[in-house]
């Protein structure tokens, strides 16, 4: 199966992934993506669920674990809007 390409913003990457912005992970769902990233950077899964919103192949979603991830998808994590 073609891996998903996971991308973070530069600010998020600087905080949590030692500045690395892009990763490739095997995933069928967002649960797989978040788990794979948390395995690489323990604790990162919490930050992804709490601090980001999500785009899978350009389609925006709330960051969850239920969304399917198509083969070769681009999964982009974007900071949540700050409301006050």
């Amino acid at each position, binding site marked *: 199966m073609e891996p998903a390409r996971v*991308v973070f*913003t*530069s*600010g998020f990457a*600087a905080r949590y992934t030692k500045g690395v912005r892009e990763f490739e992970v095997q995933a069928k769902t967002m649960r797989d993506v978040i788990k794979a990233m948390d395995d690489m950077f323990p604790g990162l899964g919490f930050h992804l669920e*709490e*601090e980001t*919103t*999500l*785009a*899978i*192949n*350009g*389609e*925006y*979603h*709330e960051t*969850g674990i*239920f*969304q399917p991830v198509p083969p070769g998808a*681009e999964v*982009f994590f*974007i*900071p*949540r*809007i*700050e*409301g*006050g």
Partner: protein
Amino acid sequence: MNDTAIVTDSVKRFKWVGTRPIRPDGIPKVTGRAQYGADLKLPGMIYGKILRSPHAHARIISIDTSAAEKLPGVKAVMTAADLPVQKFDYIGPERVAVNFWHVTRNIMAREKVYYEGHAVAAVAAISNSIAEEACALIKVEYEVLPHVIDVDEAMADDAPLLFEDMITRGIEPAPTKPSNISKKLSFAMGDVDKGFAESDVVIEHEFKTAAVHQAYIEPHACVAKYEADGQCEIWSSSQGHFQMRALTAQIMGKALGDLRVTPAEIGGGFGGKTVAYLEPVAATLSKKSGLPVRVTMSREETFRASGPTSGSSMWVKVGVKNDGTIMAADGIFKFQAGAFPGSPVMNACLCAYAPYDIPNQRAVGWDVVSNRPKAAAYRAPGSPISAFAMESVLDMCAKKIGMDPLAIRHKNACRIGTPTLSGPKHAHAGYIETVEALQKHPAYQVKLGPNQGRGVASGYWFNGGGESSATIQVNADGTVLVATGSPDIGGSRASMAIMAAETLGVDYNVVRAIVADTASVGYTHVTGGSRVTFATGTAVVNATKTIVKTMIERAAMIWGVEPDAVIWEDGYAKPAGSNVGDFKPLSVKDIAGKAAATGGPITASAGVNAGGQAPGFATQFCDVEVDPETGHVKILRFVAAQDVGRAIHPSYVEGQIQGGIAQGVGWALSEEYIYNSKGLLDNAGFLDYRCPVASDLPMLDAVLVEVPNPTHPYGAKGVGEVCICPPMAAIANAIENAIGKRLTDLPMSPPKILAALSA
């Protein structure tokens, strides 16, 4: 129907979607019987009043409420000491992170007051006049501090600090000195410097916009009833009663299950009623007094103490080739957050260039606190502000290379797959279609006279999805109830009823849609972000599909056949084929009438976390005439093309577009918060805060472009916000076209026009 509306195939393919039935909320509203937030009166109810800061910035030395408590008729007095301490942390649902350390201080001041009108204490009494008298008896000792209002001044090294420990986030390494800058945001793609070097024309300019209020006609209002067992009911006018429940529970330290919030009819919100100001105050006063308490804001309080949107200071630079290709765009966006962090500057950064395919982009945003009320959401928060700057500079570029302003937008239009500064590539089309709709519009060819000008601008907004719930009940007589958790601020009751009627195959007039309270329907996020028709509509359709499945099962039981031998067609259960048997089709009424015999009430609920919402794209042009003697700008014509996906109820969609333009005209020409030298607001009322009125506007021509969203059952896209993104730039561009002067400071009021003419 609007003469220029693009009528799509929706009216042919659907029975109800795309039609314009009479709005279900019309009669209660025009007869004055609709129950708004301030209309509810409970037995034994008393009245709350809030004491507010007379200073822009001051330290609270002491608060003495003893005299107020002794006044006959006073039942409760509260200060921030009655609310639990909140942790300093950015948390929150959906795409919004909230810091409750800030939120609780905005509801009731603690160590300091940060703006004029900041709540300091509250009283509940048997009458409004006694509550006011009691407020006057509360003695607050202040140490008045220097204040700062303007965003550029607030960023200066020697600016008075609102928070002595605020270290700017988003800068590495972190600064060692505190400032009023809450956060720096940086976004970039490509090589901006290379893009400018490869450009034939590069234009840059600075811009300023004023803080403007959403100016909803109904001020904030709520009633709270706190019982001795700790259960609390709240009735309030808001854009999200689940949001009010969550915020009130957090601020009071209560469990969600102890609060039940019922939505009142709402007299406008536009983003400003997603914030809790009164609910925790009313609930605390009710808790302390043991009586129901109503708290309402006056118009003046609404201006002084509820959130306007940010004012800004911006710089934008754009480089283009002589053939119109945009090579690079760069911008710095400095936003007033008000007294607490959290302006919509990130949206401004990410939306400014989004309609275009630009290989090299950069945006830097600054979130800055100053002694103003905390900024709140306002239609496409942030996007209209940066669009004013970007679309103005793009217009200057088009003029410089001698290109039509629609042509340059068409040449650079984004398409599916175009990268965005947010990171993801565009997944939906719809922008170029709005440009082409205006290129074909006959009014775009109308010749203009002396002192008249035409201006074009575009806009982008993400639109929202997220969590929504719906419950459908089929009554014994075949009528249908649709209950959702989305307060209706833009016609959602009509559109929900239309989608349910379409899915079930019944007459729209037998479907009644209501907004249910937090105890009667599943969690539903706010009516905001142009999300309701998309997300809540998806929940309604999903629940209705379950109803259809149940109808088929009940019909099969009545006929004594298997469910797969029954089909659902045009609101009737029918045999799937002639071999099933000779059965007369059963209507919803037929089946509902036998509900008890076939298994009980027919009802279904659905909850969704809807994703895949399509963004909103809008392109508008307006014609203006400038009076060179007075500086008055008259709007002659306004044509707005917007991709709406599929208009479920086109009249409401046109109304949203017209409303967004009307507010944009005010933002462009007349609306602003005006502060005096003491940092006090000088125009906290509609006489001095000048919103457009009917005589200021021509008929606003809404052109509905329908590029259906495949992720919604009927193709709907959010429509309520992107319409306010282009007007300010379109008007500025039209004024420049009329008088040859570029105005870059909103509002473009007559004195500024006259100053430009005489420069």
